[in-house]
Every structure is written in structure tokens, then in C-alpha cells.
């Protein structure tokens, strides 16, 4: 349960009820209320420790987008979003390909939008490789974000 107030690394005090920032100024009425609250034996929540840089970097990687570079189909090179909903779609299409259902277009390629929402023509082999590379990327970034690894994945996914 959160306390009525929490501290910050800069000395400001955050009032839980409305998120207002209270300065450490004895003339400020809200700071006076905070001091009275402390005097009643209460304790403010501590300041959240700063996020380690490598963890912050991993979180930023997980926020996407990722860069794709293909050795044989340069038309699909570019930045692609990897938000949660998109990840589910990628996984679903890759599973369909592996199951022999073919591409969603039932043709040699299908349109998959990049981060700028430009349709790119993806062949099945490259999309399956994309799904696999993305799975590995997400796992490695999550390992760092969770503190289990110190090795960040590359934000560029190399595909055949």
C-alpha cells in the first residue's frame, strides 16, 4: 500500500492523492501538512532508485522499432514496430507458414507494414526468419530488463 507521500531523487515530495509535487519549502502550506504527517509517526515512500542504464536501454529496445536487413530481399529492409499486438500477429503468421497454410495473401509475397505504415512485400522464408529473429531479440532484451543478463541484443535483425 502506498503511503500518502513519496520522496523523489530531487528533493521534491509527491502527494499520492493527486500526484502533486510539493517543494521542500517551510512556507508552503502543503509542505507544512507533510511535516505534520511525518510528526504523526508516518513515513514517506522512498524515492525510486534510478533505473540502471543497461536496463533502461533494454526497455527502450523492447519499445521498438527494430531494424530489418535482408541479404536477399532488400525491399523489406527498414524499421518495423514490435508492440505487443504486432508481436502476436507476427507469431500467428509465422505459425501458419510453418503449418503449410501459406501466406495470408495465398501468393508468393504478402504486404506487411513497416513503422511508417508502408506496405512491404515479404516472402514466406524471410517472414519466418523475421519471426524467429524477433523472438530471440525479445527474449534477450527481456533478460537484460529483468536483470538476468548484461548482454543487449542488436536492434538490427539480419535475415536471409
Amino acid at each position: 500500500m502506498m503511503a500518502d507521500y513519496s520522496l523523489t531523487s530531487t528533493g521534491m515530495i509527491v502527494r499520492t492523492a493527486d500526484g502533486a509535487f510539493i517543494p521542500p519549502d517551510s512556507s508552503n502550506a502543503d509542505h507544512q501538512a507533510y511535516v505534520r504527517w511525518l510528526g504523526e509517526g508516518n513515513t514517506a515512500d522512498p524515492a525510486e532508485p534510478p533505473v540502471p542504464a543497461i536496463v533502461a536501454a533494454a526497455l527502450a529496445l523492447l519499445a521498438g522499432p527494430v531494424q530489418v536487413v535482408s541479404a536477399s530481399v532488400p525491399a523489406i529492409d527498414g524499421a518495423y514496430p514490435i508492440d505487443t499486438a504486432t508481436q502476436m500477429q507476427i507469431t500467428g503468421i509465422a505459425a501458419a507458414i510453418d503449418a503449410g497454410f501459406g501466406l495470408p495473401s495465398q501468393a508468393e509475397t504478402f504486404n506487411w507494414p513497416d513503422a511508417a505504415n508502408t506496405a512491404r512485400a515479404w516472402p514466406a522464408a524471410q517472414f519466418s526468419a523475421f519471426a524467429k529473429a524477433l523472438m530471440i531479440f525479445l527474449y534477450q532484451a527481456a533478460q537484460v530488463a529483468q536483470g538476468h543478463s548484461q548482454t543487449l541484443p542488436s536492434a538490427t535483425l539480419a535475415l536471409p
Partner: protein
Amino acid sequence: MLRDFVEETASAPGTAATFNLAGALTGRVTFGSVFTSGALCFYYMDDGSQAEWGIGTFTSGAPNTLTRTTVLGNTAGTTARLNFTGTTRVYNEIPSARAIYADSNSRVTLPGDLVLNSVGGGQIGGFRNWLINGQMIFNQRGVSVAGGMPVSGGYSLDRWQVIYDGTGATHGVGQSTLANQSIQDLGLKQCASYSVTVAGSGNTVRQFRQPIESVFTGAGRTVTVSGYLWVQSGTQNVGVFLSQHFGSGGSPSADINTAAQTWAVTTTPTRFSATFNLPTVNGKVLGTNNDDTLIVVFTMPTGAATYQVNMTGMQFEIGPVVTPFEWRSIGTELELCLRFYQVQSQLQVAGYGNSSGGLVNIYPYNAMMRAAPTIALSSVVQTNANAQSVAYNNARLAAYQATVVSGPNFGAVSFTASMTAEFP
């Protein structure tokens, strides 16, 4: 310059600049009994056939003398000293050239500079009304009767604080625009409406009040509180008293409250006033938090009463005389409000940075505030940046910070900041 019943004789003063005074007429007093030596005084010299008037200088001695310092006029139509060869009456009266009177248009024109000790017992110039937003034109917090009452101790219209207790009430304070009210002709446009539609339970106090910065305000003086009040129906008693609050921190003196006075408020907008003798603060101890105040308190009906009291043109002035409501320019009035509460919209913390890189922007307030304010952020829009917060502030400015989400790239957070530095 002027005393009562001063009249003496002089024996053949001639045209001499200085002549001897020969003593008072029966039933009159001498110049020497009411003027100190060297004092300037109006004089008239009259021998029954001619007269001279002006400003003289009285000098005590044996005998006392009067010097005709400035001749303002005479019956010859000049400003020369006339030749008085016989017994001459010399008296202290104001010449018409120096008299102040209301003319046929009831206007008073002064022949020279106006030197005043006070106006109505109060200050001569500057702001007579120590209340801010007395005409209820600023409502930066946007409170309304329908929106409910701010928390007890909170503020409603700019500078107006509410104090109450009890539970279960349906009540609120809002800003109303006057319609079909005679006081509109006085220039009053809006009012504060204090409404109780469901009394709830356990209510013993209801205050609508304004803390004036510094408990020294009016200390040891006679002061006057006034305002236009009316109710929606019936009659309600509204009380008014003053509270000298010596602040907090350290060991300040205890609050001193004057006795309350009561106004019987009806449906007709009426200007009420109350005069108080404020105790001196000499010998009192102020708190260390620099938050001492003189609080002008209006007490609303409590308990089971339901009503709506409307108020505007509220004034607190030093002196025993209620003077017309003081108009200040809208801009000036707003500046006074901003010292205690203000809102800045469309602020932005933006920049180019690496992932998780910090961004900081510093914004001065619209006006310097009473103290470093509490700041609440709202209407936040994040663009590749988050974790917006107030890193630092003082009474003049605030530094806001945010974090770039994914970089190197641009990130920005825009928001509205509400600052309050009101009194507790």
C-alpha cells in the same frame, strides 16, 4: 493658522510691518494664548473704515507683536499695508481667498496642495482594499456550486478559502454572473455563491474567508469590513470577524479573534459593514514559516440550514469609515491573484537524447509567487518521452524533467501546470 475667538486691539499701527498687540477685547482671547511665538496665523485689521487681511507672524514678547508677513488683500483693492492711525481691531479669521467651501455644484476646489493625515482614518493612497478578488471576477480553479465544495481548508474562487466540518452535505461554492440586480450599476458583474442544499450531519462550522498576507495588517487600528450580500430566499445571518494568525513553525503567539458581528442578509442585495478595533501585535511572536496572516472570516449558517448566500464587492480597509468599493484594473487584480495561484498551459519538456536520456526545461511563472508552490501536472501528452516530473522549483520558476523513451531521437512531453502557494 486659525484659532477661535482671537481678537486684540492695536494702537495706531500705521503701515509698520510689525506692530504691538495691546490685549484682547472683552470675551476674546489674545494671539499669545493660542499661538506659539513664530507661528503663522491669519489676521484681519479693521478700524471701522478700512480693513486689511493676510498671513501674519506672531512673536511673543513684552509686548507681543504681529508681523504683516503676507498681505492677501485690503479694502483699497491692493496688497499693500494700509495706514491705520487709530485704535484698530486685530483678529484671527480665514480670508475668503484661503477658505474651502462647496460651490453651487457642491464641488470643493482647493487653492493649493492638499495635505492629509488620512482618508476615512485609513491610508491616503495606494490600495485601500486589502482583500484580493473582492469583486469575485477570478475563478482560476473553475469551481462551481454544482461541482461541490472544495475540501475543507481548500480554496474556491481566487483567494477565497472554505472551512467546514460534518459529513453528507450537498454544498458548493461557485461564481455567478449577476442578472437583474441593482448593484450591477455599481459596476459589480459577478459574485460568489455559497450554497447548501443538503445540510448533512455534524456540521458546526462554515467559513468563507480570505487570509491577508501579514498579521501586521491593520494591527492596533480601527478597521472596516464591508460587502454586498443577498440570499436566494428568506433571511440568513452571516457573521464576520477577524483572526490575527501569527503563523506556524517555532513557537508563535496564539491566534487572536475579534468578537463576531452579524449581518441579517435578505433577498435584496445590500451593502453591509462592520467596524473592528484590531489588537496591537506589539510583543507578539511570529512563526518561523513566514505565513502569518490577518484572516477576514465570513461565517455561514451551520447545522441543518439550507440556503445560498451571494457575495461580492467585499472590502477590508483600515479606518472606521466604509468607503466606496475600490476598483482596480482587471490586470492588476489578476496579478495579485497570481501571487497565490496560477495555471500555465502548453508547457513542454522537449529535446534530443539517447534512450532513457534526461530532458529538462525551466519555465518562470507568470508572476512571482508567495512561496515555492505545490505543482500539479495535468493534460499530459507524451511523444517518445515519459516520466515527467518537477525536478525543482522556487517562488519564481520551476524546472521540469522527462525521459526520452527511444533514442537517439527527439522526445517531448507537453502538460498543464497548476501552481498553488496559498496559506494553510
